[in-house]
């Protein structure tokens, strides 16, 4: 299989499931939970009762993902539902994404924290507009691995040749969008083939079942091998009057910098630079979450960094290694997805949240919009409405420190907030 590397598996995998309405997403998730024996009796008896109420002979697994009454009233799934299950080898967080175009913002919410996208495709009817849209958007927020579940293989007689045709076109499509790893699995969610169990209907298929794939695929979020980036969330000030009762912390009157290591690793003795003002200092100590000092810390850890001498640092500043600086600029190129029902307003300033930094920005120019279906450029005329994706130029009130999104998924992303109503109106990636 593409890009699978058994030894690199880590404890937690976050994935989304997406696809066009009726391609079988609910059934597939139900099947995954049911056959991996992660369902509880009360959940099962609840769907048995609902199935009976609806006059069905057998249990309808898709009822497991039944949504809120607010959604049932409208008959569509509005927002992502998070589901949790585990097998002996791994824990999974599933972001079950809504299909409807109106709720694109919720689909990208789910995708933005995912390591892998599981995209459903109906074997008979093939790729639909929504499928393509989801595929594009998942990649757009940073998912680099996709696995297609070509579902309802029973409806095409479990035919190998037909599957291979679909497979090849899906691989082309996903590679065209830019996915690094693409896998395609023929399944029947209804009957269970190749979801958790192999089944007898497709002996010609020799690859992994969907669950085997999910158990083995690396979590793409492991960015410890990248360049070191640390975003200061908070300045910790230690003095006698504000220490915790049960603290055995000895150094008083010092400052530490609390935050998340966005990528890379840092060690005591490293020379770091503050991207915003160029000051430099040496890492003196690293306080880990276990309240002990460590020699080093890595991507994904929330830590407190103490420097050998005090420099000017506040929330929103970023640390890098002195010899691996970030880019610093006021003018940025970005790909933006507009979420809000109120269209973009070119005369306004918006508040940009980027790492722990907040800064006002203006959109100077909209270069083009992207037709997610054909992947073609559309002209823009300085307007963006809900669900538009556009290539834009931003100008910020002051310098910001960043990396391009293609280089660093953590430091190359931002959201825009409209300060008039506090809505999160857009998200962007720095190009």
């Amino acid at each position: 299989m593409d890009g699978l590397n058994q030894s690199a598996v880590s404890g937690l995998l976050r994935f989304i499931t997406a696809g066009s309405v009726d391609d079988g997403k609910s059934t597939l998730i139900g099947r995954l939970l049911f056959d991996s024996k992660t369902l509880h009796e009360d959940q099962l008896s609840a769907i048995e009762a609902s199935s009976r109420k609806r006059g069905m002979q057998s249990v309808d697994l898709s009822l497991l993902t039944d949504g809120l009454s607010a959604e049932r009233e409208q008959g569509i799934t509005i927002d992502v539902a998070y589901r949790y299950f585990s097998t002996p080898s791994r824990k999974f967080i599933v972001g079950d994404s809504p299909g409807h175009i109106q709720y694109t913002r919720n689909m990208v919410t789910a995708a933005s924290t995912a390591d892998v996208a599981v995209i459903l495709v109906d074997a008979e009817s093939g790729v639909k507009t929504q499928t393509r849209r989801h595929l594009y958007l998942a990649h757009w927020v940073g998912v680099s691995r996709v696995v297609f579940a070509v579902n309802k293989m029973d409806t095409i007689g479990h035919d190998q040749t037909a599957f291979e045709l679909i497979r090849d076109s899906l691989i082309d499509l996903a590679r065209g969008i830019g996915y690094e790893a693409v896998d395609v699995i023929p399944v029947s969610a209804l009957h269970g083939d190749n979801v958790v169990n192999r089944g007898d209907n497709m002996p010609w298929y020799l690859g992994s079942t969907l669950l085997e794939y999910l158990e083995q695929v690396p979590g793409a979020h492991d960015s410890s091998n990248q360049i070191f980036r640390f975003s200061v969330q908070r300045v910790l000030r230690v003095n006698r009057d504000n220490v915790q009762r049960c603290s055995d912390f000895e150094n008083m009157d010092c400052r530490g910098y609390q935050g998340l290591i966005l990528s890379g690793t840092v060690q005591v003795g490293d020379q770091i630079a503050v991207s915003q003002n160029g000051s430099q200092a040496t890492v003196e100590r690293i306080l880990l979450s276990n309240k002990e000092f460590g020699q080093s810390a890595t991507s994904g850890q929330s830590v407190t960094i103490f420097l050998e001498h005090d420099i000017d640092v506040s929330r929103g500043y970023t640390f890098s290694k002195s010899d691996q600086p970030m880019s610093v600029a006021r003018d940025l190129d970005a790909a933006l997805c507009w979420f809000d029902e109120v269209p973009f307003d070119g005369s306004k300033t918006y508040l940009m949240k980027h790492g722990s930094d907040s800064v006002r920005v203006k959109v100077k120019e909209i270069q083009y919009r992207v037709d997610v279906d054909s992947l073609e450029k559309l002209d823009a005329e300085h307007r963006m409405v809900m669900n538009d994706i556009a290539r834009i130029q931003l100008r910020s009130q002051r310098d910001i420190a960043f990396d391009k999104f293609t280089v660093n998924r953590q430091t190359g992303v931002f959201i825009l907030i409209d300060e008039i109503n506090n809505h999160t109106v857009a998200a962007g990636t720095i190009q």
Partner: protein
Amino acid sequence: MNKLVDNLNNPDDVRLSSLSHLESLESESIHILREVASECENPALLFSGGKDSAVVLHLALKAFYPERLPFTLLHVDTEHNYPEVIQYRDAVVSHNELKLIVASVGDSIKKGRVHLRAENEPRNKHQTVTLLDAIEEHGFDVCIGGARRDEEKARAKERIFSFRDEFGQWDPKNQRPELWNLYNARVFPGENIRVFPISNWTEEDVWEYIKREDIQLPSIYFSHRRSVVRRNSLLVPITDLTPPLDGEDVEEMFVRFRTVGDITCTAPVASSARSIDEIIFETKTTRVTERGATRLDDQTSEASMELRKKEGYF
């Protein structure tokens, strides 16, 4: 001098450095708590003495260590408590020298803000009024809660930073997009954000973490003898507030609580688990979800949690 280059060339180092699932969950929660402290003016941490709020408090103490907690604790008290839980709550507060505000449903009843239909009825849903009044009285812009998405299907859909309007209401049809780890904590006066730092934890994760961190809990989380009756496939504890009904047989059993709350609507499960390891084993092998096994109030309607949340519940 540059270790990173070595890392790049040596994939083994990279693999060693990846975090375990508990480490990633902990780190995410700490990041969230630090965002709250930095972005919000007057946050309250909801602390009931239950295991989930004990975990959130533990995470918060770690997040700001060695600095004092930048939050006030708020307990929305139904007054339908097991004494062990209140003793525990007070012990934790004094041990750590924390600031606790207790807002009680009893006071809301006295003030005429809450009307009971039956004297000993469950006060779970009434907590909403007490909570919203406390938010207003103390001007909290954020309430940090210990709810988890794996608990219930309305929770499964909620954001980590969940916006509530000036009436405390949650609008599930119109949640703010929440991408990557960039949270929008902005509110206008009167509005409120509920923040759920352990959204992504499961019941099993919580127990594994309690073990790893040696977090103390109220004793009723562990197996103990208790008088109960069997009612609708649940065990109902016999207390002054919950006497047996006519014809019910009172039994003495070994039980523990998987969740603690209002006495009148929280059921224990039969269990001989006296240690955390035994509880973890039971959690891994149980056939019933936490709420399914323990909540007398959520079973009345498929949507009861959703309705309560829309009205301003936790």
